[in-house]
């Protein structure tokens, strides 16, 4: 089993809440990603057993949505919003700055597997632009100084 006992329990609990168990697919994928950082066929199979629906239905949903990575990423997934309100306040230059600080280009992971950098669509933080999400947390009103501090902080925690 790839999913931990805790994840299995959480998925079962979610599935029990819905009038139809299939509704628990997205929450289950979310729980799996929180634990593993990504999902693949093995995980789809495990989820399908836990919520008792065909595996193909889990796979179909998983591949449609952007929030379920299909391969391992760095410990910290940095997602910079590149949509319009953020772009007007320098999202492109923020991405460039992160590329330079991390020594990678967008889409890549640092050799120590600590950081993956990608850019994404609007994250609903448009009036606090530019912004990025790292794992589950939002970082808003970014400046160079803030970015430096955030990266330093994450490195020291790693």
């Amino acid at each position, binding site marked *: 089993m790839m999913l931990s006992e805790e994840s299995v329990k959480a998925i079962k609990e979610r599935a029990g809440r819905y009038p*139809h168990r299939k509704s628990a697919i*997205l929450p289950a*994928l979310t729980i799996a990603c929180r634990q593993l950082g990504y999902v693949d066929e093995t995980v789809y199979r495990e989820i399908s057993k836990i919520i008792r629906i065909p595996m193909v239905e889990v796979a*179909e*949903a998983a591949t449609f949505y952007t*929030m379920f990575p299909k391969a391992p990423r760095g410990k910290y997934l940095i997602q910079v919003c590149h949509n319009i309100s953020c772009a*007007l306040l320098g999202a492109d230059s923020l991405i460039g700055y992160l590329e330079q600080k991390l020594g990678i280009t967008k889409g890549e992971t640092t050799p120590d597997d600590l950081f993956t950098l990608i850019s994404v669509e*609007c994250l609903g933080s448009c009036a606090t632009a530019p912004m990025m999400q790292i794992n589950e947390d939002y970082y808003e009103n970014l400046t160079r100084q803030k970015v430096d501090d955030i990266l330093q902080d994450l490195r020291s925690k790693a």
Partner: protein
Amino acid sequence: MFYSPVRTNASEAEKNEKLHLFKYVEDPQQKNVETFESRNGYSAWKKVLSSMSAEQVIEEVKSSGLRGRGGAGFPTGLKWSFVPKDSPKARYLCCNADESEPGTCKDRVIMERDPHAIIEGMAIASYAIGCHLMFIYIRGEFGECIRSMERAAQEARDRGHLGKNIYGSGYDLDIIVHSGGGAYICGEERALLNSLEGERGMSRIRPPFPAIEGLYACPTIVNNVESLATVPHIINRGASWYSSMGTEKSSGTKVFSLSGHVNNPGNYEVELGFSLKKLIFDPAYGGGMKDGKQLKGVIPGGASTPFLTPDMIDVNLDYESLASVGSMLGSGAVIVFNEDTCIVWTILKLIHFFRHESCGKCTPCREGTGWLEQVVRRIEMGQGEQGDIEKIEDVCGNIFGRTICPLGDAAVMPIQSAIKHWRDEWQYHIDHGSCKVKSEFSFQ
């Protein structure tokens, strides 16, 4: 506890009798059920359960004139009245908290800072349509909102605002806080319902409308967070109080998310009919253009609404006034562009978004947004060809009005208006292979 540092006009709302959605959003205690209760919270829910019939609730909301704040502006009470009264099936209410229209960041503030207001509004709406299990579909990226709503839901159960036989009325109601998987299209109500069922988030052909056949093929109402958070105030203070605000056809207040090149980006609750110019330039709101630059254009209602030029911003923010200048109120996301913004660059960002988010179900939208992105990118890269502008117009014409859901129209409306207002700039791009103004925005 983490809150978005976004600016709000809560201090104005605190003093102003009319503003109600934002009154307590700067108070970190407001999310706690005891504080919420001490400020009259859940009193509308109690009033409804103890003294009003479902029909009376619907009538009250109808006559308040409240219109949906999610984008389409459909009258809320009227929508509720479409749910069949005699259906043997379960009925469902889904609060739409997908908030992914670029520029929009208002529902998030209410979820993070005043979650019980949403639960109370959802409860009243549920009662009005005879629903006993309600859902809130929150975009998956909004971790803090999900935690905030989960916590509030548990508090509401613990305090007897939700559960079995609520306040001894015999009415049962529970809530499920559901998180999405990251897809703009899931904000569209029929795609949202598919997603909630565990399917891919694709739209459905209608009819049947969700009010007849929605979630699990049962009658379902989908309403935006802000629409629902307004409902308790209407019940408490009366439909005529609500309809006395705003304009005749656009009653009440609305939260506008102001972003882009202004000094004070933020979320501002104002009466409908408020001046767009004032929102951008008044020191109490947008505070004018950042770095003293000139205004080039405004998108008034989120990334899928047509642009306004500086000579058009003497307009009031209500459904009718914006329609009369060829745009839309949409979700109330006002995006401000300064003179250094290249229009082709801007449209490339937008069409990239819509192409990426097209669910692929209908050909005009799936193929058309792809072509549009290709041609716009070519022009932006300096490789545009004579006739490209006409090509774009042609493709837009072939998408508009020919798709299953409104995403197709949403994708083309800003482009059509950008060509109408700044055709010379598009032509310059093609003739010279470069921008007339260069969008080189650097962060601090």
